[in-house]
């Protein structure tokens, strides 16, 4: 029972992560995959931030009167996650740029249709040659 009370939010975060992961591997729309990527990364960020929380603590900003007897939450996970957010938006931007290029090349952003257009699942050498020569 104490586990439920003490760990429930990690479990919710894991469920969120898995929803993101599922979107990434199961959906065919490339944009949808990127959305899943976003959810996945935000969930990991939430995982880090929740472990930085101290019960009864406050945001790690020193009050004006001095920090005597004030309990702060852990600042380090926050610092790390600021970096992770930046990595997330950078990945999203690059992924979407690739999606635009793919749409221009194939006229669709559904993965199965792209594979059909490209010939097989990409394991076929002939189509590789065509891609190269184009």
């Amino acid at each position, binding site marked *: 029972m104490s586990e439920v009370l003490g760990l429930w939010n990690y479990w919710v975060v894991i469920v969120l992560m898995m929803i993101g*992961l599922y979107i*990434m591997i199961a959906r065919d729309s*490339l944009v949808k*995959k990127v959305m899943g*990527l976003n959810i*996945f*990364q935000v969930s*990991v960020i939430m*995982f*880090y931030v929740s*472990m930085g929380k101290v019960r009864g603590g406050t945001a790690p900003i020193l009050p004006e009167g001095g920090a005597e007897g004030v309990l702060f939450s852990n600042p380090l*996970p926050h610092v*790390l996650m600021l*970096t*992770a957010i930046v*990595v997330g938006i*950078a*990945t999203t931007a*690059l*992924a979407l*740029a*690739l*999606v635009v*290029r*793919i749409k221009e*090349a*194939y006229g669709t952003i559904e993965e199965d249709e*792209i594979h059909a257009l*490209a010939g097989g699942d*990409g*394991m*076929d*050498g*002939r*189509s*590789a*040659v*065509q*891609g*190269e*020569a*184009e």
Partner: protein
Amino acid sequence: MNAHLLVLEVVVPLMAAPLCMLLPSKPAARMFSIAVAWITLYLAWSILGALGATEHGVIAYELGGFPPPFGIELRVDWANAYLLLLVSGIAAVVLMFGPGSAGAAVAEGRHAFFYTAVLLALAGLLGITVTGDAFNVFVFLEVSSLASYSLIGLGRGARAPMAAFSYLIMGTIGGTLFLLGVGLLYQMTGTLNMADLTTRLPDVLDTRTIVLALALLIVGVGIKLAVYPLHQWLPNAYSFAPSVVSAFLAATSTKVMYYVLVRIIFTIFGAAFVFETLHADYLLLPLSLIAMFGGSLAAIYQHDLKRLLAYSSVAQVGYMMLGLTLASATGLTAGLVHVFNHALMKGGLFLAVGCITAQVGSSAMGDLRGLGKRMPFTCAALVVGGLALIGVPSTVGFVSKWYLVQAALEQDLLSVAALILLSSLLAVVYVWRVVELCYFSEPDATQVEVTGRPPVREAPLGQLLPTWILIGSTIIFGLTTDLTVGTASKAAAQLMGVGP
């Protein structure tokens, strides 16, 4: 200056990248990036020299002057000094090749961006290698990954962006799982510094969280390293990327990820925990054997030279993983030596393919017919590189396989040793296909007419030279093994905790 070698190794290419972007002309950007790569090579060589002068074979650097574990620490021992030399050396040679087919994909006036991206990828890889902080690995991993996704997306043809996108999705899953693993380690120990982790982990080793952390880290790194069965992104990425990018990534990116895996298993967790308590070798050993055979078998059936080489990379990663899984000093030496040797041969081979695509306009196997007469030097490079892949004596491939077999025999794994030799026969098959097409078949008359291209001539010297530097060094390092085996065995001893 000597004291700051470690940070300069990363900061020089990192700051050169934005400078390179500002350069006005294509030749200027090219010369500048080549110069930067050679400077990093020089710095890596100096680091190796400085390491020899130390007592314990460790150099550490406190960034910002904050002592670890509070600040970020750079920490180099024999293993990463060896990798630094490899990565910067490959970059120095590959950049001389020029943008190849990537040049056509870049908009006019933006050519400097290509070199900027290569420098960023290089800086990211060096940053991963040099750091002693687990989270810092993630940051530089993303720098190098983002740069490589965009470089792969520049490939000729419609399929390059899709290959880059699949790699991006897989790579980001890998990177994020790695981040999660680091988070779990941090949660259980309160530190991100690798050396500090090593001392604090034994107290919590028996928790399920730490086992999960190890699993997440191995899977995360395994995706980027293309460990079988997480390798699906690799064949497409390498075959649709511009050849010069394939050469650079095949020779550096997976090698650095191998180093990260070695660091995680041997330094942070300790071989005893991973292999004796958890018996990770029960899983990893069969997987690496499957990779060796599956990769080589798939390579035999490819119709495209680049794709053939890509599948051969999957097999070669299997050899490296096998060395790691044997968990002995000899095995690790074999793995690390193979990292170096494979980088030389795959880099050289992909550059040779780059010469061919630049002249012939395709890397399809069919277009190789009779190429031996028209591009003698390039085809000779293909043959020598192929011989090294097989592991013929006096090439580097022989050296790594020798140590690998020795390591297997040390542990009485006779069957494994036999399988290593058997898998080399598969390499003979796919290399022979290339040789046969180049030298023993006549060019298709119709094909020449249909394509209507000017007659194929030998590649220019600017492309042949870097190709032959790499291919030539596969022979040089096959004959003199002091640098490779010498450093690798020191690194392995240090990682196993026996040596200095």
